[in-house]
């Protein structure tokens, strides 16, 4: 905005303020700020606030082990992802070729995913496909532990919870190059 325009806008705001007895938002309105958002508390947003960050923030209470996860997987996941995550109509969840095999190499949990928290986040928000967001937090932790164990990223007895999951180091953690560093915050 050029300076003369800004001055004119301020003058207009002052005019509106001066000529309107009870318009406390007049100045905002003159600047095009209707202020029509309804205040809402984080508690009210909680059911939608399902983002899990790599540092673990957002992870809910609960826990699970690979063996717990195997049981959940057999009943809720294997129909599409195949027995033991070997893949069927949906992607395999175990294994993966080296990325140096070619640009078209299939990306997998083992060869590609940089953060274990993404496994929890995506499983909870998007799976099972026909009934997303129906898994309990314990079930999501258990499935995450199971998928990590299938890929030998954690041991068969590993317990996944809000403390342990962010500490899991994925094999391809350092495999990425930011395309336009100058665009990054």
């Amino acid at each position: 905005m050029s300076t003369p325009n800004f001055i004119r806008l301020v003058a207009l705001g002052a005019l509106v303020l001066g000529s309107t007895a009870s318009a406390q938002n007049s100045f905002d309105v003159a600047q095009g700020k209707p202020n029509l958002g309804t205040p809402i508390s984080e508690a009210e947003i909680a059911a939608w606030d399902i983002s899990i960050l790599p540092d673990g923030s957002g992870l809910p209470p609960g826990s699970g082990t690979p063996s717990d996860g195997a049981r959940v997987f057999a009943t809720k996941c294997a129909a599409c992802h195949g027995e033991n995550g070997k893949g069927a109509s949906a992607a395999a969840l175990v294994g993966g070729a080296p990325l140096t095999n070619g640009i078209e190499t299939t990306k997998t949990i083992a060869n590609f995913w940089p953060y274990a928290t993404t496994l929890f986040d995506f499983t909870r928000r998007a799976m099972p496909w026909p009934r997303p967001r129906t898994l309990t937090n314990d079930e999501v932790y258990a499935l995450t532990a199971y998928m990590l164990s299938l890929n030998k990223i954690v041991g068969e007895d590993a317990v996944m919870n809000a403390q342990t999951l962010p500490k899991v180091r994925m094999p391809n953690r350092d495999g990425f190059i930011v395309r336009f560093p100058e665009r990054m915050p």
Partner: protein
Amino acid sequence: MEDLEVVAGNGLLHRRAFLRGGAIFAAAMTGYTLSDSLAAQQLADDAWSTRPGTPIPEYGVPSSFEKTVSRTLTNPRGEPRTQHARTPHHLLNGTFTPNALHFVISHSGAPDIDPAKHRLVIHGLVKKPLAFTLDALGRYPMVSRMAFVECGGNSAPLFSNVPVQATAQALHGLVSCAEWTGVMLSTLLEEAGIDPKAKWLIAEGADSLALSRSVPVAKALDDAMIALYQNGERLMPGNGYPMRLLLPGWEGNMNVKWLRRIKLTETPGMSYYETRTYAPILPNGKAYQFYFLQEVKSFITHPSPGLTLNGPGFYEVSGIAYSASGRIAKVMVTADGGKTWAQAALQGPVLPKAFTRFRVPWRWDGGPAILQSRAWDEAGNMQPTRAEVIAQRGQTKAAVTNAAAFPSQHYNGPTSWAIERTGEVKHVYA
């Protein structure tokens, strides 16, 4: 006709030849399907001219003769996997895409959202978390702008080690351009009050996957919009009804559809789609992350595969150019596979981060020709050659047989069309 200025090999004419040549030039133009014998027939009234026409419908649909002008679908029965609907660029002209033909990628179908119940929530690192109804957003000052949206995977078949024989729709149909109208996101963020610690926002949809992507706050404050209208009408369901995030010029998937939540954060969410799906693998086994920009690109739509030339003579070569870095500054076209180039006319208005239609008059002598375009944007970026793209990004080891596959992403090199003596158009590398 001899006074028309040939400016590049194989008959490319000066971009203003059609103005200089006037009526003589216009009379010499032939379309792709005109038959020479038509002009010699005795004219008579056709059936449609001798009786009243059909009633006008409430919501218009194209002529029954235009049924082939449609999107191609990869998953028409909505099986549990991604759906792609590609724009038929070779059957359209101009610069914006009709809403029913705008490309769609949906990873779990289009939710049937009741606009009266939809909410947009802004929270996280803000002074005052806010919820907005569609009615409330409708009262804000709005902005209209043209903007292309392009999937990061558009043009992916060009990574094949041998050219995939397919139409411009199949190769480049995951980009479209529309006039979007809505509320600037900066207006809503200012109302909520951005905590200075916030560097990113996580945008999330109301679809069954709650698809989420992380966006730098700087982009949100630059030109991001909560889009409510598409080419004048409410958004199409597949394009995010009742509201989507519009990030002009940035990777399509980041323009989150069915937008219901924006959370401001210090760090990115590292979501599935940003750390896995839209992170292309490089030849050395590393992968690009946070690609963000849809870099300068152009391709010829007329002629192109499926539009067979009907004998030697005059044609207009035209196509589409666009860039995330602003306006298109220049497009050059070759008809001899890159030996010589003619500058194309740019159809105005040339708008930033929007389709620009380019045109060059061409006199085809009936012999083999290879057409290709290259674009420059106002930031000085030049569309790279395919060889340059491949040197940096690699290509497949085996020929791609499925044009709908995505061997990699973010191809912005040129596309070459070979004109055969029959008038048929083939995809080649040149």
